[in-house]
């Protein structure tokens, strides 16, 4: 240790302190150097010697420039700073130093120079060097990962955006800019809701309330507004962003453009509809030819002439009624077959819609010797839905029920309302669904029907249509116990 301190007292107690002090210096995980006014090193701890691959003899008593590379001494202005420490008795605060020396790996230090004074006089300057190489490297790695993540987000085809908990937009990736036409600059700080179609606002509030309450990922399908006034259907996944304490700090939304998928779905719907029409064709032919045959017979009576006035009138009435009936069947059929272009959401009377769909399926049930037990309420039940889609869902369920009863049976159809929901149950007394198939019946192209007799699309399309109406579809079935499908839809 330094002469002035060492010469003060040589008592055993002082020696003990000296020992403790040395131990402390050796144990400290920083490099510690004591330097005198002449810039000579008077003490160096083990940490310093180890890191710089020096020994005590070639360090102690040497001047600073013999121990540190000249470039570091110049850059850091060690002589000037040490002089200040001695003259003004103040500490030089932490600064960063990159330590490059021949034969030693590059290290980065945070250093400070502290006055070491005795009775008001600065005896020595203490150079304290903390090795922060690892921390700096870690910081750089974090920045590299951040840049990498940013480039992933930027090059993603999907929309990736983040908002604060209130929904104000913080980030907005290139895909979001491209799809919406709005730049990050234009949207930053604005509420995300402002860029979604108005008809979804109610559900948005529900999703955000859930996220704020700390619930996990939420899914939704909302249209994104575009700069040119258009709308793009987008399927969203919202996840809460958590801070280091696990508290919700913001929201990340990933959105996928559904335009192409919607087009594909529309094609699929139409294909399946045509398949259903094929199934119905036999029943419909039978059903139209009946009134035609009545018309034709009545017309032939009139053509034969010489009729009682009352019978002649009866014939005319039969012709009229028969034509109306045939025409009604054709109209129902056309309505069902019409492609669904833009799904138009409007108020729908479910009672009427179900009755009309049922009238189309009745033909099919009759020729399959199936007894129809319909329990429809007299009063209308209003829901909000797509007139072009719902009949297809119910028709699929009805045709399935009929198909499940090749040897005849009973087709039950009931409609009712409870707890703010309308429910429709369609049951058959047919062969039932094997437990092994129950989990798959709503999957597209899953069918147990022989090749050419089922597309495997019917139930998956039902599922998709009912889901688009924010409803649910469930099934109860057992082998040889028949099946009951229940559709629930929110009441308007």
């Amino acid at each position, binding site marked *: 240790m330094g002469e002035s301190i060492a010469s003060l007292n040589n008592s055993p107690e002082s020696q003990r302190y000296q020992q403790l002090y040395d131990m402390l210096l050796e144990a400290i995980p920083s490099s510690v150097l004591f330097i005198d006014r002449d810039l000579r090193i008077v003490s160096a701890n083990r940490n310093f010697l180890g890191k710089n691959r020096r020994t005590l003899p070639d360090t102690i008593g040497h001047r600073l420039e013999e121990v540190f590379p000249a470039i570091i001494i110049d850059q850091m202005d060690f002589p000037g700073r040490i002089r200040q420490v001695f003259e003004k008795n103040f500490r030089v605060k932490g600064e960063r130093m990159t330590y490059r020396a021949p034969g030693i790996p590059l290290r980065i230090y945070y250093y400070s120079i502290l006055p070491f004074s005795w009775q008001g006089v600065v005896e020595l300057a203490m150079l304290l060097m903390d090795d922060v190489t690892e921390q700096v490297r870690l910081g750089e790695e974090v920045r590299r990962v951040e840049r990498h993540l940013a480039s992933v987000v930027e090059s993603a085809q999907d929309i990736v955006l983040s908002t604060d908990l209130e929904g104000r937009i913080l980030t907005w990736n290139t895909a979001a800019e491209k799809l919406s036409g709005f730049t990050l600059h234009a949207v930053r700080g604005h509420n995300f809701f402002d860029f979604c179609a108005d008809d979804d606002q109610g559900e948005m509030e529900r999703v955000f309330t859930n996220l704020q309450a700390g619930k996990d990922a939420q899914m939704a399908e909302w249209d994104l507004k575009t700069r040119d006034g258009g709308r793009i259907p987008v399927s969203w996944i919202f996840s809460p962003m958590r801070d280091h304490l696990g508290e919700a700090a913001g929201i990340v939304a990933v959105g996928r453009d559904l335009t192409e998928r919607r087009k594909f779905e529309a094609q699929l719907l139409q294909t399946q509809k045509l398949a259903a029409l094929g199934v119905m064709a036999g029943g419909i032919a039978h059903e139209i030819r*009946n009134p035609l045959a009545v018309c034709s017979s009545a017309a032939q009576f009139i053509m034969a002439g010489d009729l009682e006035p009352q019978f002649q009138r009866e014939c005319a009435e039969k012709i009229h009624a028969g034509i109306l009936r045939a025409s009604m069947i054709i109209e129902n059929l056309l309505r069902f077959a019409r492609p669904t272009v833009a799904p138009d959401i409007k108020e729908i009377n479910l009672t009427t819609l179900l009755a009309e769909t049922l009238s189309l399926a009745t033909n099919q049930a009759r020729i399959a010797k199936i007894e129809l037990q319909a329990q429809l309420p007299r009063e209308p039940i209003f829901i909000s839905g797509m007139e072009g889609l719902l009949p297809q869902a119910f028709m699929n369920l009805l045709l399935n029920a009929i198909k499940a009863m090749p040897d005849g049976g009973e087709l039950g159809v009931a409609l009712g309302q409870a707890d703010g929901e309308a429910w429709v149950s369609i049951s058959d007394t047919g062969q039932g669904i094997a437990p092994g198939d129950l989990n798959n019946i709503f999957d597209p192209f899953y069918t147990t029907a022989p090749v050419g007799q089922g597309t495997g699309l019917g139930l998956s399309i039902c599922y998709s249509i009912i889901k688009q109406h924010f409803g649910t579809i469930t099934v109860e079935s057992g082998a040889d116990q028949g099946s009951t499908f229940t559709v629930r839809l929110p009441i308007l």
Partner: protein
Amino acid sequence: MTDPGELILIVDDEPDMCWALEHLLNKQGYVTRKALTALEALKLMERHRFACAFLDAKLPDMDGLELARRIRERAPDMRILMVSGYFYRDDLAIQEAIAQGVIIDFISKPFLQAEILRVLET
């Protein structure tokens, strides 16, 4: 050949179809009985001896061809005609039924009244 005055059975679940056939046949002097279901038809057969029957192909409780087979078992010499909008004339099921003698002929709906009468007269 079915002679006027003989009893004819009409089976069709469509009341207006029964109406049309009844008027046509009654005008020609035939006596008719109608049934809207296969069960009704079989019951009528217990009480009457029909010379001829017109059957629809699809009845609520039984297939028309099945009813024809049951009738054939009970009354082997009854003339059974199928009148339906469901089948084609050259439908395999129809061709088979004719070949097996289950039905004597098939008339598709809508039909000419002359066709019905012609079948009765041959």
